[in-house]
């Protein structure tokens, strides 16, 4: 026995199914489509946009944001949200720079451990005290920033990355592209496998799709919740670490508004904030899209900082509105 559904469908239904599939594709890959359009505009309008260097710059700059958005995607698919990532990102950077004196392993391990524990605590509170993720991670945002300030003498001390393997990691390139970009690619592939092809991934979707149903179907709700917040914390810490390696120091003035940027990227990538649906491919497209827009604004060089903000905001709205309309079209097409 195989799939028997389609042959039985009448012609008209088959046709409507086909349009539905197309609309679905466009909608799922909406960010990618817009990214394509924006890239074409950039390529045509700005000479410098075409260079390999510029592409490399876009990728490297997008790396930390991509990692944060990766974790955020998991969290948002469960129907949660993580506002603490911006603070954890700074904290991770400071810790990595400080720990780099003990070698490259410590430089990665310390931020991962601390930010992971931060995520764990948030996950535990969300899962067991059943407080809204929004509020818990808002407190996490303050807590992590406070910890970062405490560690850095109220932000006054900037730890420099020790010359050594960790710093080399930040400087190193392969085929003209920084190592961090490869790391991000690898992690996204692992992320995709985890999300689409493991039981944990299934439980992430189930939890976001319907918490009650998931519980009754035997999904370990708390375990899943805790895991996604740990994951998000770890990735934010790692993003901080690779950024510290790149910058050569544990900069303390980073990260404000980073959480909103990450959320925007994830949402632009087509993930529903209500949970239950979303893709990592969309998230990558979302991250790159926001980065490319910035890049184009810089290429132009004449847009004042005030207008830059207007454009960014309008763009987010535009993409999301377009997506909503496509989703509606799809629902109509599928009846």
């Amino acid at each position, binding site marked *: 026995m195989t799939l028997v559904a389609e042959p039985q469908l009448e012609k008209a239904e088959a046709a409507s199914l086909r349009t539905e599939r197309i609309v679905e594709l466009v909608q799922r890959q909406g960010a990618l489509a817009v990214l394509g359009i924006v890239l074409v505009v950039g390529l045509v309008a700005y000479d410098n946009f075409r260079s390999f260097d510029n592409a490399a710059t876009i990728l490297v700059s997008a790396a930390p944001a991509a990692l944060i958005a990766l974790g955020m995607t998991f969290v948002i698919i469960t129907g949660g*949200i993580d506002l603490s990532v911006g603070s954890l990102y700074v904290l991770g950077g400071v810790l990595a720079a400080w720990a780099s004196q003990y070698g490259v392993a410590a430089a990665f391990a310390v931020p991962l451990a601390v930010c992971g524990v931060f995520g764990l605590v948030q996950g535990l*509170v969300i899962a067991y*005290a*059943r*407080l*809204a993720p*929004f*509020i*818990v991670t*808002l*407190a*996490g*945002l*303050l*807590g992590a*920033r*406070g*910890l*970062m*300030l*405490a560690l850095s003498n*109220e932000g006054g001390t900037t730890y420099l990355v020790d010359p050594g393997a960790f710093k080399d990691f930040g400087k190193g390139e392969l085929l003209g592209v920084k190592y961090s970009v490869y790391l991000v690619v690898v992690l996204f592939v692992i992320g995709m496998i985890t999300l689409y092809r493991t039981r944990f991934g299934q439980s992430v979707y189930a939890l976001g799709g319907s*918490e*009650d149903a998931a*519980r009754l179907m035997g999904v370990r709700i708390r375990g899943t919740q805790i895991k996604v917040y740990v994951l998000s914390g770890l990735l934010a810490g790692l993003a901080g670490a690779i950024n510290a390696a790149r910058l050569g120091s544990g900069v303390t003035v980073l990260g404000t508004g980073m959480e*909103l940027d990450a*959320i*925007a990227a994830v*949402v632009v990538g087509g993930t*529903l*904030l*209500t949970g239950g649906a979303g893709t990592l491919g969309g998230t990558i497209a979302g991250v790159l899209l926001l980065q490319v827009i910035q890049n184009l604004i810089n290429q132009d060089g004449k847009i*004042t*900082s*005030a*207008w*830059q*903000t*207007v*454009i*960014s*905001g*309008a763009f*987010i*709205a535009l993409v*999301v*509105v377009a997506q*909503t*309309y496509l989703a*509606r079209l799809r629902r109509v097409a599928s009846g």
Partner: protein
Amino acid sequence: MTTAVSSSSSFNSATVRRLLPLYGVYVALAALVLFNIVYTDNFLAWNNLRIQLVQVTPVVIVALGMALVIGTEGIDLSVGSVMALGAALIPLYLGYGMVPAIVLALVGGVVVGLINGGLVAFVGLQPIVATLAMLVAGRGVALVVSNGKYKDIRDKDFLAIGTDAFLGVPYTVWIAAVLAVVVGFVVRRTVFGRRLLAIGDNRAAAQLAGVPVKRVLVGVYMIAAVLAAVAGVIQVSRIGSADASRIGLLIELSAITAVVVGGTPLTGGKVRVLGTVAGAFLMQLLTATMIANNLKDSTAQMVQAVIILVAVYTARERRTR
């Protein structure tokens, strides 16, 4: 958000459990006041209380609107930018007098509210996304309007709003108090308020029950934005300058915290106005306590994090579990 599951309720502490969410924020507030009476110099001086009242005003006003939005199961991240926009509009028409300038600032709020509400109600965007876009773009517009620069305000009448008092209580505090009463009345006693809660509890059901859902939603976002604009105007009158790049920065987080700490659940269907005001006071007093005792910024932020968690934990709804 969810119903049911696990554990049973016991009876001995049942009353406490029932009352704590309702009055937890007031208990916390009282505890903090006691702490301050003992440890903070001059805490009970009228001047000090006046300062606390004046400083909390913008958060209270913004939080009132936020509470309404949260009551519809929404959220409004754009309030800070709306404050900035309101502030940026003030100097433009102050030359024609105080009233036109204020009216214009409020109209700015109305416009943003219409856009927010439109995106949520008609386009069907999730509130957090719609208002996130507006958070970014709104401040940009404020900066464009103000030409990127802040302006000092010299209009005596206008500055009087921020500095003068009636019966010893500053005008701004009166404004906040009146707004709180009005919002409380709207929630409890008006058709609009009932409808808002029904939408927050079950939007589909409200729709089928003939509630003009879209109109109510647009109304709610408009009120939130206008209140934010009012807060912006008050802030300008208090500081004496309109700085679009600074005013209202991160106030959305303070406002949401105040609302949630005050016992309004993020899941909608319920609005607690007095709790919201108390929540705002709690957070204000917390900051004041830490500044007055010259705590380091790092410590202050960590303490604040813990207190938010504890407060929200006590205020959380405990039904059915």
